[in-house]
Every structure is written in structure tokens, then in C-alpha cells.
């Protein structure tokens, strides 16, 4: 007997197991790893620049600012004019070709950022196409991260909202003597971000609750209930924010 039938059957089994959730998981992983790579690269490029011009380097410790400023001027003279740092530097005097290395590194960082942006857009498109309700309530990236933690959208739909609220806090969840975290991946949601610190937990609870509704709708009934869920979310968030104003 030949093993050909088994191979055909096994190949079919593997092909059937891939779903759009697997693709989303892989893309989220790609985004995470690429951003890690970007941070490492930035640190190395920054260190090289620090060797060349430490006085300016101290002022430009923030990543965004460093990239913004160094993009245009790279010479010591230009930077000192722009930032007002001393012209006489303690740093090592790098010549032209070595300054080029800093420039190339910055170019590479901006390329990586373009890549991350394009992947994030693709994830957004995927979520919007497959899970429109979740996209409207939770936005694309948060839904994708939830899927990548839970394994699949089907499993996510089986979870209670309290679990979805703290999904992504697995590392801090079981530390002895510490309270249960208030939010996990949901923290990146703009409603939670914009809330005051003492209300973030309550808002996260509401967002998770409405997000769970949206996820379950996407999996089970597949109806379009975006507007209903969104208005419910806004009503409950307003209630929390309104209560607080009333007390003061």
C-alpha cells in the first residue's frame, strides 16, 4: 500500500486549517517584531550620533525629535545653528563617509516605519472586511491583537467581556499581592486613552462590554449593528463622564 492517500489527506487537512485569523496573527507578529527591530536600530544610530556630537545628542534623546531634526541637517555647524548647542564639541571628529552611515541608518528607520504603516493599513482592511462591527467599535489594530492573543475570532466570541477587558495582561495577572489589572489591549482604545486616570478602568469595562457585543455579532448573527452598538457605547461612556461632573 502506498502512503499517497495519507499525504493527500494530510495536505488537505493543513490547507483547511489556515484561516483569515492566521493571517491576522502573522501580520500582528510582523508588526511587533518590526517595531522591536526599529527600536534596536534607532538606539544604535543614536549612539553613533552621540559619539559624533554629544552636546546635541543629549538634547535629542526622544526618538521622534531626533529623527525630525537630524533628517535635514547632519553637519555640526548646521545643528549648532539650529539647536543653539556649542560649536566646539567634545565628540569624536567624524569625517564625511562616517556621517553618511548615520544618514543611511536614519533612512533605514524611515523605511521600517513605512513598512509598519503599510502592514497596519492592511490589518485594518482585513478586519474591516471580515469583522465590520468589531472594526467600528474596537478599531482594527485592537481587534487584531485580541485575535492574536485568543487564537481565533471564534474563541474570542466565546469569552466573557471581563476576560476581553484584561486580555494582554497575562504577565502581570498572577503576581501575588497585586490587584487584577484594569485593562489589557483595550488600553490603546481612544476612549480609554482620553479618559482621566481614575475613570480609565470604568471606561475600559464599558468598551470591553460593547466590544464583546460586536465580536459576538460578527461571529454569530453577522448582522450590521454598528450604529446600535456605537450609540450604546457612547451613551454609557457619557453616563460615566456625566456622573463625575455632577459630583463636583
Amino acid at each position, binding site marked *: *500500500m*502506498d*502512503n499517497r492517500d*495519507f*499525504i493527500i*489527506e*494530510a*495536505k488537505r*487537512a*493543513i490547507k483547511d*486549517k*489556515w484561516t483569515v485569523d492566521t493571517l491576522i496573527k502573522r501580520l500582528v507578529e510582523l508588526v511587533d517584531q518590526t517595531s522591536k527591530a526599529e527600536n534596536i536600530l534607532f538606539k544604535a544610530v543614536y549612539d553613533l550620533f552621540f559619539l559624533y556630537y554629544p552636546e546635541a545628542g543629549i538634547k535629542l534623546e526622544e526618538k521622534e525629535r531626533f529623527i525630525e531634526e537630524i533628517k535635514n541637517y547632519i553637519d555640526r555647524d548646521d545643528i549648532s545653528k539650529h539647536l543653539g548647542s556649542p560649536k566646539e564639541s567634545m565628540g569624536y571628529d567624524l569625517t564625511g563617509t562616517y556621517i553618511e552611515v548615520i544618514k543611511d541608518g536614519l533612512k533605514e528607520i524611515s523605511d521600517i516605519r513605512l513598512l509598519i504603516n503599510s502592514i497596519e493599513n492592511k490589518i485594518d482592511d482585513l478586519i474591516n472586511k471580515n469583522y465590520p462591527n468589531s472594526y467600528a467599535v474596537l478599531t482594527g489594530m485592537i481587534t487584531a491583537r485580541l485575535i492574536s492573543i485568543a487564537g481565533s475570532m471564534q474563541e474570542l466570541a466565546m469569552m466573557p467581556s471581563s476576560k476581553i477587558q484584561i486580555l494582554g495582561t497575562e504577565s502581570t495577572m498572577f503576581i501575588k499581592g497585586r490587584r487584577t489589572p484594569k485593562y489589557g489591549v483595550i488600553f490603546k482604545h481612544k476612549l480609554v486613552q482620553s479618559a482621566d486616570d481614575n475613570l480609565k478602568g470604568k471606561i475600559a469595562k464599558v468598551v470591553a462590554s460593547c466590544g464583546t457585543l460586536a465580536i459576538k455579532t460578527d461571529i454569530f448573527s453577522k448582522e450590521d449593528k454598528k450604529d446600535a452598538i456605537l450609540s450604546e457605547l457612547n451613551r454609557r461612556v457619557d453616563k460615566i463622564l456625566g456622573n463625575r461632573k455632577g459630583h463636583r
Partner: protein
Amino acid sequence: MEIEKVIDNVYWIKNNGSRILTTLNFKQGVSVYGERIFRLNGREYREWIPSRSKLAAAIYKGFKPVGLREGISVLYLGASTGTTLSHISDIIGREGKAFAVEISEEIGVRLILLAENRKNIYPIIYDAAKLEDKGSILQRCDFLYEDIAQKDQVGIFIKNANNFLKRGGYGAIAVKARSIDVLSPPKEVIERARQELSKRFSIMKLIDLYPFQKDHAIIFVKN
């Protein structure tokens, strides 16, 4: 160099006082996972590395798995990428059959590519705990080998032995103490697994695989 036979198609190659475990290569000239190949007297021998394969570690520790012969059928649960499986495929030879069960699709790809090269490997991408669903395509086997990282791995082994192991057949289970119970000491976990197995099988040998594998043991049983 000297050659000494252990069981069918498994040989020690002795050289200057050191010895290397090898199996006769089923597919000439192909190294499966980057292991060394020795050519002696016109035959090819593939090195069987004990730190990568628990069965090889058991043989290094002095046990002869007598149940493994040429021409038998083997049910292998948790085949993974097919490191140990490729050597079992060497042992059973052209007449034998090795049914390899693996659940993960990513690892299964490599397993299928291996099966395309070796005609005696029959890949099944399925959960080893629910293997009775595949009863229509599987047959009763002479040898059952299990190497899965599950809490209930002993229970799964007994269940599959009831369904797919011939009377008088042999079995080997790689007990992963850390997968069964993280908190209890490994020796206790292994002893518990041995007791549970002894209710159903006659135990041939329990081998602690240290220093080749940490917190692992392999138990050979007879049905």
C-alpha cells in the same frame, strides 16, 4: 572502525574507543535534519543523536527496544518534524509502516515533506487524543510510541493502546514530567505515571534520560 548491531538496522559505529549510534539510511544520500552520514562497506549510516531523540538516549543508556523490528507497523503520536520518526522509518524498512500523528499544521508541513521522500511514513494531521475518529483508516500496530507534551499524556497513551495496539505488541512513552505537573518533583511524577501504566501493561523498563534530556523519562511496556 567496527560495527556492532543493536537491533534491526541500528548499529554502533566504534572508533578509537568512542561509539556513535547510527541507523541504516533508508533514503540513500539524504540527511534529514543535518545529522552526519557515515559510509562504510558501501552502506550508509545516519547518526542518531541522543540529545535530539529520546529513543536514541534510551539506547545510549543501555536498553535494547526489542519490539522495534524490521517490517512492523508503528503508530507514532506527536511526530513533530520527524527527527525520531526518520530513524524509526530506517528501522522498519521498506515493508514496515509508520503512522505519524501530529496536530500542529506548521510542523506538519515538514512532516509531509519527509513522508514524500520516505514511502513508509503515513502522515495524519489530527489530534492524538481523538484518534478514534480515524479508526477507519488506521490499523492495529505492533509498536506504539508517544511523545506529546500533554497533561493527560498517560491517559492518551492507554486509550490509543486499547484502540490501536495489537495484543503482544510493544509500546514506549516519553514521560515529560514538566508537562504533566510543574510543581511536584519530576521523579514523583514519573513514578505516578509508571504506576498508572502498570495497571494496564507489563512494564519492561523505566529509563531516566538524564543527562541527554532533563526531567524526561521513557517507559517501555508490553501489551
